[in-house]
């Protein structure tokens, strides 16, 4: 099957950058960061699938499954951490997560 990879790649890249800007420009909610990470992973998954079809090699699709699994696990862990964090600090706003400053 012949596909126009340019269009698909553009979709993937725009998804990726939306996710990235979600991390960088977001100043409020920490849940949004988790969602953005999911979005980035989705973009990458999309890339994998597209190119696996483009070069007729299903290794990319297998890889996409792996990434899907890991993304699910990671978001579960992330949510767990947020819950604990909320219990301790009483907020999930990013402005208050500046412990790195020391």
């Amino acid at each position, binding site marked *: 099957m012949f596909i126009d990879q340019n269009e698909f790649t553009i979709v993937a890249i725009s998804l990726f950058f939306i996710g*990235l800007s979600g*991390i*960088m420009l977001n*100043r409020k909610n920490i849940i949004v*960061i988790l969602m953005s990470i999911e979005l980035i992973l989705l973009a990458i998954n999309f890339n994998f699938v597209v190119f696996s079809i483009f070069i007729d090699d299903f290794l990319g699709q297998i890889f996409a499954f792996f990434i899907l699994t890991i993304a699910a696990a990671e978001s579960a862990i992330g949510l767990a951490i947020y819950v604990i964090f909320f219990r301790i600090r009483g907020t999930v706003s990013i402005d208050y997560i*500046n*412990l*790195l*400053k020391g």
Partner: protein
Amino acid sequence: MYLSIVFFPLASFFLSLCFGKYLTSKGVSIITNFCIFFSFLLSLIGFYEIGFCRCPVYIKLFCWIDSELVDASWGFFFDSLSITMCVLVTFISLLVHIYSTSYMSHDPHQSRFMSYLSLFTFFMLMLVNSDNFLQLFFGWEGVGLCSYLLINFWFTRLQANKSAIKAMIINRIGDLALTLGILSIFVVFKTLNFVVVFSLLPYVSNYTFFFFNVDFNIVVFTSLFLFLGAMGKSAQIGLHTWLPDAMEGPTPVSALIHAATMVTAGIFMIIRCSPIYEYSNVILFYITFVGALTSFFAGVTGIFQNDLKKIIAFSTCSQLGYMTFACGLSHYSVALFHVLNHAYFKALLFLSAGSIIHSLSDEQDIRRMGGLQRILPFTYLMISIGSLALMGFPFLTGFYSKDAILEIAYAKYNFAGVFSFWLGIFSASITAFYSIKLLYLAFLSNPNGFKHSFQLVYEPFLSMILPLALLSFCSVFLGFLSKDLFIGIGTPFWNNSIFILPSNSNFLDVDFLPFYVKFIPFVLSVLGSVLSIFVYFFMPNLFFVLCTTNEVFSLIYTFFNKKWFFDRLQNEFIASFLLKLGFNFTYKIVDKGFLEFCGPNNFSMYALFLAEKINNIKSGKINLYAFLIFTFLMLFISLGTIFHFFYGFVDFQVCFVYLSCIFIKKLTLDFGIKY
């Protein structure tokens, strides 16, 4: 055996320096005297083997520097030239050692003095026996060091310190030139070994090489710079100013170093490098010119000096000029013959001057002496012999070499020959004038000194008499005895150690000179001495009266008495210019300005400044960090691509220069630093 000639003095130096405290000054004197004596005996044997039996000795001791590029070894090359110098150096050194045992006996640091003398002897032997230029340079610097140490021996005297530093610095100027000469030899020949260099020299006589973007003939360049080095050591005009001042040292030092041996090192070097000089006629002419000027200049200055040792120092300078122009006329054997003869009578003069100074309680001004022939008859005899030999009185030692030099100059029918002949003749008569002046004022005139300096007068002890007697014997007979050996026509003695280009040689012309020419030096010397006696016998106040009544004469007198203002010239023009340059440019602008600005100072300041800027970035905001990480990651990944893309359009070296200019300018603006 040959190595012991060189290393006996070194052993003597170490023994007397390290164990001087335990050996006492008497023990030190005995040890050093014996060491030098053995060295002298061995060099006499060597003189027989090498000079008479004609078998040169080459000893390669061990490697000094052995890289792919440079090879220099501690090698000793004993040929007729160097063994003759060995005999001379060890002989004079032995006599001076003996003399110093009594001359320095009142000094608490006598063992140090003896050790320095031995060290000097070692370095001098190292210099004359070296087989390569680097080792020659080692000996050269070593004798300079010993000269410094010995001039400065009485280091509490300010004048001695000044003279020692002056000697050191002016010798450094010469040494710089010598270094350049040696380096140019290395550039061309890739070796410093005498034998290799001299045998390859005819093949490179047309080579040129660039120095400061000027195209030089290699032979001319090398010989010029080697000669400039010799000028420093041998006190030729321009770099001579250290020699009269060096008389601040103890008198045995003046006799050994500043009359007999060290100052002839430059002459020795010229003779040793005769193959180089023979291929550059320009430099030979230059050498003749400088030598003749020196002999004339020093002679004229000598007339107007009043210090006993300075008069003799200037006569040394004048005789060195003779040797130099003999070299310039490419009669190296005659120059070496004059070196030998001059060593005998000049050491004699200095040592007897020392005995006068010693017995007159350190009075050096000849105007405050007089009448000494009644109380110091032996010294009078010695000084007379020395002076007569110096004047070239017939059949004394000086006569044979000095007249030979003048005849050679006459027989060279070109400008250099005529120039040096007439200047040489003139300075010969001047030599006679001041020698007789010295004799007359110190010994024959009425006593003019202070009473206390005459009260303690005594004739020297045996250990001071012995060297004087030996030297006077040499000054009377040795010239006659060794004339045919050293400068006789066709003498086989030199045996390849001296090279003379056949077109430069005029040995035969000398023998066919008109008879009256051979008489000119003698007649003029007699005239000079008669004039001197006339002036000082009938008009002892002549100079004083003229100076006080006639302003012009007073100016002339000052001019000559102050050594033609060479010191002032050097101090006020050259030295102060260099000092100002060093302070204003090198120190203030380069060292403390530019280097400090670009280097340590600003680096630390800019690091702090940058750190402050970077500090603001560190806000603890996660999204900012994420942004930075991402941006720089992308930047570094695509760096290669960016460079590759711009490679065809931009010159990155220029960019770097431009960026660093911006950087420096930004620094200046940021910190308000002014140049």
